[in-house]
């Protein structure tokens, strides 16, 4: 755990940027810091998955006929937990659940991270363009946003999953999970950019009127300077909060899609595939449902608490520093 910063804000906060100020406040929130470490743990596991799996000697892809009985169910109690398989084995094949869980972290975080990055990025750019250019470009972008928000997004994501994946494949995207991931990320971006864009547009419009932007303009500052030196630094806190808030939803989405039958493709180890499969066994092998379900819950909870912490720290109107 990080040592808590006990210095008083008022002492030397004068020369600090909003970013530094926020970080200082963030470190004071206990839960936020714990959440940070939870998330950090999962990210670490995801990055070093191959090494961790080898160290723990749990192969996510190796079949183990000896740990399942003739009905294909795990032999021992709790999904056949043992030293060889610390979290038990998958019914039907005897593959190690811990190993699959570790590898599955990668997919969930990949979708969460890239999905958020893309939709935030597109949102920031379109929001800025709309805010800076105004006029018909602004109206056009705003109207497209209205249309995107008028669609039932989850329904459309599911309805289009198979056909659009095939279409991507026909456009040359490699078959299988590459195409499926591309689809998921693309459609998340299509539906996800609007809120960010609206937020940024509003901020830009109000910042434009502020003195320091006006001043920069009067010195003949170009758009680039304006965007990178003046607007972005002031938008950072908003962006960070938005990122932290949308991440958990995207992380859980892969699992939801698999549950509804349109997720990734086996034999890749993913939490969604595990959960989707465990549903068939949720009464005979309950542990199998709880393990990936619990991991997903923990990760999403971690992100949500982190988001809360960041919001409290960076949003000046927030009044919940203490939890």
């Amino acid at each position, binding site marked *: 755990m990080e040592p808590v910063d006990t210095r008083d804000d008022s002492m030397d906060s004068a020369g600090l940027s909003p970013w530094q100020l926020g970080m200082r406040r963030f470190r004071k929130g206990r839960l936020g810091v714990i959440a940070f470490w939870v998330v950090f743990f999962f990210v670490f596991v995801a990055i070093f998955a191959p090494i961790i799996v080898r160290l723990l000697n749990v192969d996510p*892809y*190796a*079949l183990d*006929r000896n740990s*399942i*009985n*003739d*009905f*294909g*169910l795990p032999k021992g109690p709790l999904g056949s937990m043992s030293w060889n398989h610390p979290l038990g084995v*998958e019914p*039907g*094949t005897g*593959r190690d659940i811990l190993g699959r869980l570790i590898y599955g972290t990668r997919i969930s975080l990949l979708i969460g991270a890239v999905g958020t990055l893309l939709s935030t990025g597109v949102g920031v750019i379109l929001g800025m363009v709309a805010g800076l250019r105004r006029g018909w470009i602004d109206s056009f972008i705003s109207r497209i946003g209205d249309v995107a928000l008028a669609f039932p997004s989850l329904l459309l994501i599911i309805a289009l999953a*198979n056909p659009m994946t095939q279409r991507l494949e026909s456009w040359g995207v490699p*078959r*299988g999970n590459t195409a499926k991931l591309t689809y998921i990320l693309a459609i998340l971006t299509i539906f996800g950019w609007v809120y960010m864009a609206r937020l940024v547009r509003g901020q830009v419009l109000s910042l434009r009127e502020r003195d320091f932007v006006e001043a920069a303009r009067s010195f003949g500052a170009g758009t680039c300077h304006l965007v990178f030196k003046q607007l972005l630094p002031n938008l950072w806190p908003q962006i960070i909060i938005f990122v932290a808030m949308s991440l958990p939803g995207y992380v859980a989405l892969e699992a939801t899609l698999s549950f509804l*039958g349109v997720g990734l*493709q*086996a*034999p890749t180890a993913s939490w969604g*595939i595990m959960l*989707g*499969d465990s*549903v*068939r*066994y*949720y*009464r*005979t*092998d309950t542990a199998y449902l709880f393990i990936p379900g619990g991991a997903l819950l923990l990760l999403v909870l971690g992100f949500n608490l982190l988001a809360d912490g960041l919001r409290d720290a960076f949003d000046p109107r927030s009044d919940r520093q203490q939890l």
Partner: protein
Amino acid sequence: MKRNRIIAAIATAAILISACGGSGNGTTSGEESGGRSATADGIKDGGTLYVLTFQEGASNLDPQRVYTGAELGAYGSTYARTLTSYVPAAGKDGAGVEPDMATDLGTHSDDLKTWSFTLRDGVTWEDGTDVTCGDIAYGISRTFAAEVTAGEGPMYATTYLDIPEGDSDFGSAYPGPWLATADQQALFDKAVACDGKTITFSLKVPVADFAYTVSLLAFGPVPKAQDTADQYALKPFSNGPFKIESYEPGKEMVMVRNENWNPESDPVRKPHVDKIIWQYGLDEAVIDERMLADSGDDKNAIVYGGIQAENLQTVFGDDSLKDRRTDGFDGFVSYTMFNNETVNCIEVRQAIWLGLDREALRTAAGGPFTGEFAKSFVAPLLATDYAPAKLVDGLNEDGTPNLEAAKAALEKAKTSCPDVYAKATGDGLRFDHPDSDAWKKNIAIWIDSMKAVGVTIIDNPIEPSKYYATINGDRGDIMRSGWAADWANASTVIPELFGKGGGFNYTNNESDPNFAAFDEKVQSAKAETDRAKQATLWKELNQTIIDNVWAIPGSATKSQNLVGSNVRLGYQWLPFGWYNLGAIGLAG
């Protein structure tokens, strides 16, 4: 939870001939025929039978479009009578046909190309009007209407009836009753002629077992005045002991007794219950739970869809359930097809077969209860035509892989067919399969066991509903399938799956040099009128397929069922692999 459980196999009308003499290497699974629930012990007339199912509804109620084994039996025994029907009896007696609406099993010309049947007196529709010869002809003519029946049912009418080829949707000169001009209708009326109560079929090929063919509901009657085209699938008109009072997919179907059904006219059906209520869209786990609890109305319940693999251990581990459970072959054989044009190297195909962990695949499906390792593409229940073939040398009986033999075969391929060898061990072979829950695991076993041999597998899951339509156009190197005979003759198996122009031949085996001789023999087997000789030919042909490894036989699959404790005469009717609703009844 209700998951998209999609049955991977296509064809369906399972006609099973005799109980198999359990070749059983299954230690836990044996034949069980239902004990007391299959007998008439204490049976009483009346009461309501419940059918619990996870299905959202009937696959189709339209007689010309039903093509699922259990449903053919269920609807045939309740509302859709045909010229002939299967004998209503447990065990192998059930596999023969007997006259139903017809007075006998038909008379035929010497060349087996003309068949006549005479209708009984007193066969009526649910409104009391007579079932006429014209109704039967009209019913059969609907099969030709692609715009309505869409080839969903069996297509024997289009392949057998003597109607010239033409440019309508099924390649016939007759486009079905809705679109036909007077001239086109005349073509059909010539092939299916009515003279009073006598119906005469003119065929373009000799068919020895046409009496079986006309037992398919697709050869049943439909009254033209009641026909609602596509919507006939929701409310068909009854000529049997039950009629459909209401049908709401996703919820329930209520079948009640048809007052205008005349028992004297029907030698086949001896209904005992007053009402049959089908409860649709139930959770599979709930069904098993309710059946095990056996309380209230569930004592009068049967299940359509079998026992979930997860619960087999519970059901078959408890001997108090002996009088309520059944376990037996369902007539299906699952198999893996090769695309013999792209994998035109027998050593590679042998290597894959030898190295495949069939035991792991069966365990993933639920173990020995799910089936026995098949030794033929013909199901064991089709006893006349079934003989276990001699499988490839070195194949392990217990289904585990023989890596040594597999590697040796692959080594041979290195020199005998370097191209295929390079592809198999390099870029890999594309494996097409339906993207079902089960296959998410099966493919891992395939990839894993092929890796041990040295063959690379490229996974290609296909949406289940589009699977066969997809591989019809774009075939991978290896493909998954399953099949059951349409009636008690391997003529509905081997030519269909491996013959030239077979409706379900995806193997591209025509490119194999051995194919010409094989297909010639298939043609002569089809024309063979001596049934014993024909059976010998089918067995030899099956051996040829296995010797050439055009496909790998998987499992002769089994199904298990559990009934409520009041159910009587709940026997598994062999032709359909399910209960006979025209006989089933309830005790006290």
